């Protein structure tokens, strides 16, 4: 077997040294009935060429991967410069474990330290961890953390405009974990979380309020206003960002008053890959650092005073604290945090802003063009980033027509928001060529006729 180096001679020598007659003898502690019934009804091994052909044929059956993708909704088509994957393919990075032995893991450790720094800069908060699984579970962990911080409170308010998957994940995580109620805050006519409702409903029992930023409809929430209300009642504010590119342009959650800010980092450095792996970003104020979930890397000095990095504050974690840990997370999204870091470094201060500007400008242009088609409207008037909702009677027909021309024309909202009727969420980024945008407009125009 090409991945297993043991030759027949090796096996013989090793068995002799151990002092057993054959391989089966090594398993004598496994009850014989279990061994007898353990046969694997699986095909025999294949050559690399066969494996590759099989996978290629599966990949070829994903016709949507070749479409011009105007779908966002939590996973975004962005350009990833080649330098990112060049780094990810470094076996020294991808074949290492969580950096338990810092002296021979400084590469991973320094990269995480840089990641933590960048995440805290983007989210505008003091401290970020080494990553969470994704935006959704990071949001759920943020809610759990808020419940620890405000540990006498029993209620969490989650905006209905938060990504549906994130909301579902919060529900799953909270079920059974203490006795916290999740209350949904409604949406106003602008596509924002209803401020008046929040003013009435955030109370002394409220541990935290969760907003999307931008929210699921691409709309930029007025985080500062909500924070003012929440903080007045000592509730924490959590923001969840699924389009991390927005953080290069919009005021940071921290600046607007968020106490915990989480995000999905896929947009920066990571292909959509059918939704995973991405990387969850998690940041908070330094006063809460010992309540944070997830690993943390800190600076340290060696015996000669050299600067280095180590895993730190591990007493929060499951391998030390077990059932009292701040989270059960162990393996996180290490390599994806590296992708994120490399991409942000390559873009830099200027580049990330340029990309964000290009995104928002292109999305607004398209919204305008579509909104001026008879029968279609852009229902929400609040400012949005690179996603927006479009509504109209014949929308599904238009989307189906567009799909025929090789376009993935957004996501239908009805499965999560039946109240909107025929509505779709469209996303435009720097990858969309004018020709594809024109084709999309044409498809919608034709269907509207």
């Amino acid at each position, binding site marked *: 077997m090409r991945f297993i180096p043991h030759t027949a001679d090796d096996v013989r020598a090793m068995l002799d040294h151990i002092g057993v007659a054959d391989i089966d003898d090594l398993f004598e502690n496994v009850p014989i009935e279990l061994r007898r019934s353990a046969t694997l009804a699986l095909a025999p091994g294949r050559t690399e060429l066969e494996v590759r052909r099989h996978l290629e044929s599966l990949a070829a059956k994903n016709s949507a991967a070749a479409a011009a*993708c105007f779908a966002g909704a939590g996973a975004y088509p962005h350009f990833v410069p080649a330098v990112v994957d060049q780094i990810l393919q470094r076996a020294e990075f991808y074949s290492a474990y969580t950096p338990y032995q810092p002296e021979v893991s400084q590469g991973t450790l320094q990269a995480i330290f840089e990641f933590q720094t960048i995440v805290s800069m983007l989210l505008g908060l003091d401290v970020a961890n080494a990553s969470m699984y994704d935006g959704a579970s990071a949001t759920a962990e943020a809610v759990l953390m808020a419940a620890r911080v405000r540990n006498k409170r029993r209620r969490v308010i989650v905006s209905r405009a938060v990504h549906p998957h994130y909301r579902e994940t919060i529900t799953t995580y909270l079920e059974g974990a203490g006795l916290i109620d999740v209350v949904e805050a409604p949406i106003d006519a602008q596509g924002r979380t209803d401020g008046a409702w929040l003013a009435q409903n955030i109370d002394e029992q409220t541990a935290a309020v969760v907003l999307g930023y931008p929210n699921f409809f691409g709309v930029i929430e007025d985080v500062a206003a909500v924070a003012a209300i929440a903080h007045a009642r000592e509730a924490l504010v959590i923001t969840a960002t699924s389009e991390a590119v927005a953080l290069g342009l919009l005021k940071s959650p921290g600046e607007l008053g968020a106490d915990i800010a989480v995000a999905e980092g896929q947009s920066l450095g990571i292909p959509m890959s059918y939704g995973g792996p991405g990387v969850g970003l998690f940041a908070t104020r330094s006063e809460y650092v010992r309540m944070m979930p997830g690993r943390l890397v800190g600076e340290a000095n060696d015996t000669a005073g050299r600067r280095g990095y180590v895993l730190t504050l591990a007493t929060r974690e499951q391998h030390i604290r077990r059932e009292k840990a701040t989270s059960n997370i162990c393996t996180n999204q290490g390599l994806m945090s590296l992708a994120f870091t490399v991409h942000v470094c390559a873009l830099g201060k200027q580049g990330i802003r340029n990309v964000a500007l290009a995104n928002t400008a292109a999305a607004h242009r398209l919204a305008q063009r579509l909104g001026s088609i008879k029968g279609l409207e852009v229902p929400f008037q609040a400012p949005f980033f690179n996603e927006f909702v479009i509504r109209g009677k014949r929308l599904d027909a238009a989307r189906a027509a567009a799909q025929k021309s090789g376009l993935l024309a957004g996501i239908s909202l009805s499965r999560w928001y039946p109240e909107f009727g025929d509505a779709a969420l469209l996303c435009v980024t720097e990858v969309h060529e004018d020709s594809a945008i024109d084709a999309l407009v044409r498809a919608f125009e034709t269907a509207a006729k």
Partner: protein
Amino acid sequence: MQEQEDEQTPSGPIAGKQAGLILDEPPIFERSRAGRIGVWTAAAPAGAESVLPAELLRDSVDGLPEVSEPEVLRHFLRLSQWNYGTATTFYPLGSCTMKYNPVVNEVAARLAGFANLHPFADDDAAQGALATIWEVERILAEVTGMDAVSLQPAAGAQGELAGMKMVRAYHVDHGRARRKVLIPASAHGTNPASAALCGYTTVQIEGNRLGLIEAEAVRRAMDDDVAALMITNPNTLGLFEREIVQIAEVVHSKGGLVYLDGANLNALMGIAKPAHMGADVMQINLHKTFSTPHGGGGPGSGPVAVRQILEPYLPTPRVVCRDKTYAWSSDFPKTIGRVRSFHGNFGMHVRALAYMLALGGDGLKLATQMAVLSANYIRKSLEDEYHLAYPGLCMHECVLSDKRLEEYGIKTLDVAKRLLEYGFYAPTIYFPLVVSGAIMIEPTETESKETIDEFIAAMRAIAREARETPDVLHDAPRRTPVGRLDEARAARRPVLRWTKPETNA
């Protein structure tokens, strides 16, 4: 001093070369110069600045580095060279199954048909992705003997969480959630943490003097307030739980469920199926047994597998297959819901499938056999020099300790640090907690006998050094990019992000 040390170094990965040059590299922020750029993005279109109200916008993000592409590449290349990885050296980290990550897996996951696929693509335009998930589920079901599988969880711990949420949902469905979960003292930390996240109180079960859980001990702890036993098999001592079948019977007899931590599945393929042991639910770590890379701490993938009674509770959506057409279905009213967005770490599913197909049934069994053979070979070769925590045959890993070295003032940590200097990554240390000064060694099946022999020679040399020149161990490592780092101080005054040095501010 340095040179004296060199002479004591026996053959192994570092013999034969000079000390070597490590190129230094500061945090990338210190490379930043105003105006540099690493990706030439198109200039923002005219008027873009005024598309959104100015009060919504931040200035450009303060502190983000400004570096050219050559600097970005060089920075991360240098960093990479400070790491050991399985690709560069033996990485016998117990419980982590640091096997070889086949390169073809990486190619497969990067195929445009996978990498560029949006998770909300219509099912009919994503049949290949659905088939990939379906195939992985089927193979996992065959290997574990379980009835149904969900690939949604992002890692082992999330698989545990999903599994325990299902345990809870099951009990709620059958009357009440119950309050307790039994967990052996040797269990991985994620087990109690996951149970606690589901609102359970954990009850610790002690192993016997052979390192094993006895059915009798479970019987004593078991009552009808126990929701489940979370058991690892082989356990974290590398030992097969010989009474597993009886244990499961005890748990089942009181209406409890058996959660099996499947992190050690690499010891079982073709040898024993968890379902036959009595497991009702388990997670599988694709990044251990099925060769997807650990990535310096992820991404992993932690599919959860269940027997029929728990199937209704699996996370949704699930892949269903009708007439050779695959579709996502959320039509499972009893589901625990989702534990994350979309469909799991799909890129890892592709890699795992590539691996499963490459090995096939016989290959998976051979992997297990050779992993167990190698672990026993190491055990046998070291048990005269090191204290072996529990005697006799082990499965895919073995646990030694520093017991016999204490008298020379040598601790497990010293052994580990000295090993780094010999060119090997260290075993898992101080875990499992039930063994004081544990040294947990898992070679996996992808290391050659010669490499294992070199490792054994190094371990034996270190035991000798511990007795004869213990300071060599205390001072280790001196040839790694940095020496021992002051972790206590780092935790006391945590510096968790880079900040501009005062002088430059």
